[in-house]
């Protein structure tokens, strides 16, 4: 408190006018005061008297010059009067203030004395001395002034001492900083071998405090204040940044312990530079890691198929700076060849999103690592799946629900009342695979029909059908195959009607024609004439089929009111071979897709023997119920074939995967097909009646039909008729 008040006093003193503070002692000060009061008083009185004197003479006998002198004098006197008055007032005011200041000072000294005995005694002594010779109030004033002066002197000395101390401390601090600066390199180089810098060596002896402003550090650098060490925390961004600058705050620990220096010794800010000196490969490696996604999806692979992924191409890395050190694959299916960077192998089971971690190291700096997750989906191998389905389910009976069975029973009961039933059972079933081979009169007639894998998979019936037979004492042959539409619920019945009734009608009609004119085909080679003669036979066959379908549909409708003849959609492919004047004559007729062709004969008679009804999109075709099915002009095809030949009829299940559309009309296509089928047919057992086969004990023709073609799993039916005169 005392100190504070004294300081306040110093401040007051400083504001006192300079002219007054020049007086050195009390006596001199008294004389000064006297002069300052007396002189203006005398001046005022003098001026007043002069004014009075001048006024008393006015305006009796003044000349104009005298009047002017009078006025000027009056003005000067007035000015003197004003200044004197002001001076007097100023002096009086100052003295008044001085008195109160002295009183304050004395009070302050009194307080100070209470805590300072020696000072108190001295003051008492002084009081006594002064008391003897001067007025007590003057003494007090003087004593206060003396004390104030003493205090000021003391303060000045202290100030001087402090200044010197501070100057010294500042000099010391600056010299320490200069030493420290010299010991810290202008650029601190960070290398892969040493990814930190230890400041403790340069700081230890400096006697300074060193604090890194962590705010100025990038996140990838770490500062330890305890160890005085800066460390690369995440080297990749550091290498990319190449250099960083951060701030350090340096302070003198002396300032912290010495309150006199604390506010004076300010901290020093220093900028420190770190430079990343890493191999070029490391930079490339890091740039690559930045540009590569963490997860990369590989193209899907097929179960069981050998797979190869060139990871250099896929992940765009260069083995000169990135080394693929290994892969981690939870499925253990693909193996990395480190010499070629090829990930290869066979994924045995289908799986979604298999994660394979590819691990990389920088070539020149193995501690620099990176990994990429490769995502791989393995899809099922459809061929494998189809073959499983085929093996396990080929001989299974199609699946029907109880209600479906009930409904079919009612439907079939109705149909059975209008024979012929064509092998009708309760659910309109048919064997899953059938075959037949008959060899007669130089003809080798064989056919086979199998349920497609898609129907096996779905537990559905075979929808194709086939029938063939000899007539005219085995000198003539008729063949009909039919493909029931997959979209029609009872197409299996439709195709059965087509195959059986179609064949029956054709044979009957030709027998009738030949009964009327047995040598007709032996006498004529006129194709157009023949066409006119037989076209009605084919249109009648179609009409008969349609009529039968209508009859059955009507009957079925009584059991199932929504039934429509379109539910028995089926195609119609028919061929009739008769002996002719020159070898044989072939009548072929088609409604819908599939194909009829001849091979094994001369090129001018070999080739496609029908106009298949392919739609603009796959799966589109015509059926025997379609408009135009009886257009014999368009659909009937007549070929006279001298000598040996092979006639082949097939449903689209066979022709679609087997015969590209652009070569289906070419004789060569049919020659090679005929030759392929010849040996297969010849291995078939000859039998008078159609055989029903099992998958395990299937004949060669059925086995041939089972051949796998991706995406083609429809029912397949084929019929071949080979004529070889030399076998007669």
């Amino acid at each position, binding site marked *: 408190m005392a100190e504070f008040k004294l300081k306040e006093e110093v401040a007051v003193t400083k504001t006192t006018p300079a002219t007054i503070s020049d007086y050195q002692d009390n006596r001199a000060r008294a004389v000064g005061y006297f002069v300052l009061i007396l002189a203006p008083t005398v001046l005022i009185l003098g001026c007043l008297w002069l004014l009075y004197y001048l006024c008393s003479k006015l305006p009796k006998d003044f000349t104009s010059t005298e009047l002017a002198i009078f006025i000027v004098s009056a003005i000067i006197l007035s000015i003197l009067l004003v200044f004197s008055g002001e001076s007097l007032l100023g002096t009086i005011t100052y003295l008044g203030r001085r008195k109160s200041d002295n009183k304050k000072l004395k009070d302050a000294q009194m307080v100070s004395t209470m805590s300072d005995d020696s000072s108190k005694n001295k003051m008492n002594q002084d009081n006594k001395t002064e008391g003897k010779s001067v007025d007590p109030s003057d003494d007090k004033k003087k004593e206060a002034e003396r004390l104030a002066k003493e205090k000021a002197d003391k303060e000045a000395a202290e100030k001087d001492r402090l200044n010197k101390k501070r100057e010294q401390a500042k000099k010391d601090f600056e010299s320490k900083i200069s030493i420290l600066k010299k010991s810290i390199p202008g650029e601190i180089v960070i290398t892969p071998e040493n990814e930190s810098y230890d400041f403790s060596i340069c700081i230890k002896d400096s006697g300074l405090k060193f604090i890194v402003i962590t705010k100025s550090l990038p996140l990838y650098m770490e500062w330890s204040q305890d160890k005085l060490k800066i460390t690369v925390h995440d080297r990749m961004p550091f290498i990319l940044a190449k250099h960083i600058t951060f701030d350090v705050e340096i302070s003198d620990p002396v300032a912290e312990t010495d309150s006199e220096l604390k506010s004076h010794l300010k901290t020093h800010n220093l900028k420190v530079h770190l430079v990343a000196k890493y191999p070029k490969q490391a930079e490339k490696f890091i740039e690559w890691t930045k540009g590569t996604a963490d997860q990369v999806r590989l193209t899907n692979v097929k179960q069981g198929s050998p797979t190869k992924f060139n990871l250099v191409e896929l992940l765009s890395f260069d083995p000169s700076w990135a080394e693929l050190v290994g892969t981690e694959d939870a499925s253990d299916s693909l193996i990395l060849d480190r010499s070629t960077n090829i990930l290869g192998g066979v994924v045995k089971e289908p799986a979604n999103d298999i994660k394979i971690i590819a691990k990389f190291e920088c070539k020149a700096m193995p501690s620099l690592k990176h990994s990429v997750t490769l995502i791989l989906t393995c899809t099922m191998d459809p061929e494998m799946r189809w073959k499983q389905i085929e093996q396990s389910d080929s001989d299974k009976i199609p699946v029907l629900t109880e209600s479906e069975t009930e409904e079919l029973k009612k439907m079939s009961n109705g149909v059975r009342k209008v024979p012929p039933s064509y092998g009708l059972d309760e659910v309109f079933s048919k064997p899953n695979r059938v075959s037949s081979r008959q060899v007669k009169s130089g003809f080798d007639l064989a056919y086979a029909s199998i349920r497609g894998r898609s129907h096996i998979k779905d537990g559905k019936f075979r929808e194709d059908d086939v029938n063939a037979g000899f007539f005219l004492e085995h000198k003539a042959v008729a063949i009909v195959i039919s493909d029931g*539409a*997959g*979209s029609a*619920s009872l197409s299996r019945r439709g195709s059965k009607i087509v195959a059986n009734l179609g064949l029956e009608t054709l044979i009957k009609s030709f027998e009738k024609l030949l009964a009327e004119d047995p040598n007709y085909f032996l006498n004529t080679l006129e194709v157009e004439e023949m066409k006119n003669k037989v076209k009605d036979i084919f249109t009648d066959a179609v009409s008969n089929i349609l009529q039968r379908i209508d009859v059955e549909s009507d009957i079925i409708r009584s059991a199932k009111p*929504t039934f429509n003849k*379109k*539910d028995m959609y089926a195609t119609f492919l028919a061929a009739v071979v008769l002996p002719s004047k020159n070898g044989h004559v072939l009548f072929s007729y088609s409604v819908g897709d599939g194909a009829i062709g001849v091979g094994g004969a001369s090129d001018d008679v070999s080739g496609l023997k029908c106009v298949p009804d392919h739609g603009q999109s*796959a*799966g589109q075709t015509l059926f025997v119920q*379609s408009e135009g099915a009886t257009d014999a002009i368009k659909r009937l095809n007549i070929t006279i074939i001298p000598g040996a030949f092979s006639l082949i009829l097939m449903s689209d299940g066979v022709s679609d995967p087997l015969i590209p559309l652009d070569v289906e009309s070419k004789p060569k296509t049919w020659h090679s097909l005929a030759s392929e089928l010849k040996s297969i047919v010849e291995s078939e057992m000859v039998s008078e009646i159609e055989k029903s086969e099992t998958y395990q004990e299937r004949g060669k023709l059925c086995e041939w039909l089972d051949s796998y073609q991706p995406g083609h799993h429809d029912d397949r039916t084929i019929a071949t008729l080979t004529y070889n005169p030399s076998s007669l």
Partner: protein
Amino acid sequence: MTGDPINQVRTQLSSIIDGLRADPQALETAYLCLITFGAKANVEVPLTSLETFNIPATLSASGSTAMGEALELLVATRKADVVPKTGSTAGDWRPMVFLLSDGVPTDDFDAGIREFKKLRWGVRVACAVNGAEESNLRRFLDASDAPAGYNDESANLVHVSTADPMHMQSFFKWVSASISAVSGSANPDNMTSDTPPPAPGANANSPSVGNPQLPPPPPTLT
């Protein structure tokens, strides 16, 4: 469509893909194209075989509803990628189209629908998500303004709510079953307009008309 609904669609699509991949017939024959439409229509995945198809990690259909542009893009994609009957191949089947939207077209929908109806498609299914306005979806299904012979019998309008995951799941299950059924069909569509056989029990509103293999949508969706 943003946020949760589009994420749900992605999840469900993902399970459709998984389901279809378990079907060897679909795996060998089905191709998928994924188009999203928000402020703009975008071919997320061009027509790709099921074997190689992968759903993008994220789907985006935010902003407005460029449904018209999406249909035009669909038509362009079909023209570019769907193989018609050529000299040597039978060509691809007519594409099935599933249109899902929770919005109202904000672009020139008429232009899109005009382009769309110039071609003949297989099954068309419109799905109003979360009570979306139906009139435009009905126009997508409607064949009255389409060229003669346009088959609208295989068109369905269904409703799903993303608020109910089971609902969503049943829709996508049905979609999956429909794709499977059609890809397994020997005759998914027919050459002439009068040829498709009506399904048992079919009437004008029946979803299965013209495509008996297409299972009827679950009753909760209709």
